[in-house]
């Protein structure tokens, strides 16, 4: 992988790469600054003053807490469902040869590969046709569907790295299928599942496009934020929430990275 004879990148390349990375990170850092501005009605730069009062204001807004609670609930349940479905699917696909294996892989990836609007309106029209009222459960239904692939990718990668002879050894030593699952298989895929679960949680927590189609009157945190974007009330409060969200997703991503670092790719290249 090393370009022979060139251990240092040309300066232009370094600058271009650095500039690109900066481009990626600066806007988010700006939000952090805006969370402390004293100016409430506009996005004036530079901020006229700095204050921490918006943190307290945000803390006391009940609608934020409600939205947060719903987001957490939806993300938790969706992640759980995605963990079960994704692991089952990954186990089946990586351990056996069967007709239609490729199709299953495609099926799993489809909810995330097709634009969110398609998934959203498809689910919405299906709910309409079958007269299912919109509720927290319809949101969860949508989220779980596209979270499966995140768990699936991580699980498949880990299954592929786990040698078959481990399962045989366990059975050879007297453990039946269930015992092998409990004492050998699960411990070996645990960190991959954890990583997949964390990524799925982050994905669900942040999702807005499909959610707007599958929610009724409920507000998840992203939906709350969307409202604020379109009809702002107290702008710095929105910034505070945004800042908290960035910090809150920072940790699971970092965690997932360290959990799957040795060899795997994190299933992040599909959102």
């Amino acid at each position, binding site marked *: 992988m090393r370009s022979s004879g060139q251990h240092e990148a040309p300066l232009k390349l370094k600058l271009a790469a650095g500039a690109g990375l900066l481009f990626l990170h600066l806007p988010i850092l700006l939000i952090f600054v805006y969370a402390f501005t004293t100016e409430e009605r506009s996005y004036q730069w530079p901020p006229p003053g700095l204050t921490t009062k918006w943190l307290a204001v945000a803390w006391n807004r009940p609608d934020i807490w409600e939205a947060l609670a719903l987001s957490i609930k939806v993300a938790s349940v969706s992640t759980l469902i995605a963990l079960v479905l994704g692991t089952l699917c990954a186990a089946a696909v990586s351990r056996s040869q069967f007709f239609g294996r490729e199709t299953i892989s495609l099926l799993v990836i489809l909810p995330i590969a097709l634009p969110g609007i398609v998934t959203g309106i498809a689910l919405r029209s299906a709910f309409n046709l079958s007269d299912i009222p919109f509720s927290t459960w319809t949101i969860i239904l949508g989220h779980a569907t596209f979270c499966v692939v995140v768990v699936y990718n991580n699980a498949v990668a880990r299954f592929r790295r786990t040698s078959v*002879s481990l399962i045989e050894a366990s059975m*050879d*030593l007297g*453990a039946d299928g269930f015992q092998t699952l409990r004492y050998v298989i699960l411990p070996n895929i645990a960190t991959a599942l954890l990583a997949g679960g964390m990524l799925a949680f982050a994905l669900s927590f942040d999702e807005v496009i499909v959610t707007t189609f599958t929610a009724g009157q409920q507000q998840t945190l992203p939906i709350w934020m969307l409202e604020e974007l379109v009809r702002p009330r107290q702008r710095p409060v929105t910034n505070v929430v945004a800042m908290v969200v960035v910090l809150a997703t920072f940790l699971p991503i970092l965690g997932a990275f360290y959990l799957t670092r040795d060899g795997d790719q994190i299933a992040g290249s599909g959102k």
Partner: protein
Amino acid sequence: MTAAVLFSKVSRHYGLVKALDEVDLEVLEGEFFAMLGPSGSGKTTCLRQIAGFDQPTAGHIEIFGETAEGVPPFRRNVNTVFQDYALFPHLNVLDNVAYGLMIRGIAKTERYRSAEEALDLVALPGLGKRRAGELSGGQRQRVALARALVNKPRVLLLDEPLGALDLKLREQMQEELKTLHRQLGITFIFVTHDQNEALSMADRVALFNEGRVVQVGTPQEIYRQPNSRFVADFVGSSNVLPPDFVASLVGSSRWASLRPESIRLTESGGHEASVVTSNFLGGSTRLALDLGSLRLHAMVPSISVVPVVGDKVHIDWNQGDMHLMEEGV
């Protein structure tokens, strides 16, 4: 003596491919039995069927008189040392060794004690707390051995156990396995493609080729009396004498095998041959000789005068060393 393992006309088909073709095999209790053969000969398939990871498509397998087909591996009193050792990476050495006991529900103190004893048996005392990744190849193999033996199986299976070890370690392990076998008195069945290993360790050897058992016997029998060209070629190198030449010597028109070390150089008499190549190997010298149109290989002690290329020499051998074979191939 009862048969530890009995195969009756066992076949294993994968579509049109015959991994095993009507194999009959009998492993006696307490034997050190080797299954030898080239890759794809079926020996590993047989081993896996004894362990329970594979099922025959036809035929019958018995382990100590009990039917084995349909019995899962976790119900058999058979344990395996895997080729890649298959140590559980998430457990330390002691937990690895004690795994089988844990599954059976044996209490912690007792199973740890048994595990320590097993580790002592394989000359790895005190390594209990380490993880598999921290051990050398040789150590890992011993742990795999201990893990299998601690369950006191009636049959121990070893799948190419010494393949990944370097030469010195391999020789050492060969001796240790033999010693263990004598100590424990249980049946050992191991699979290898290395005929030196099979000959040096086993009480009896079964030679496989293309899904069939070609010959079964003690190492001496297999070596001295190969029943076909394949055996003669695979086990040690051998000269294969064509029927007409054999007929001129003993009157019987059959193929015969003649081991290189049976050929000796004489002053006169015997057959006249010319030296084509001469390889000095230290204690012995390997010669390629042309006897008319026949190419022979001889292994002679490296005495003071070693023939060189182009020399004309006289060679001879005992008639008894020439083993007449059943079939030509």
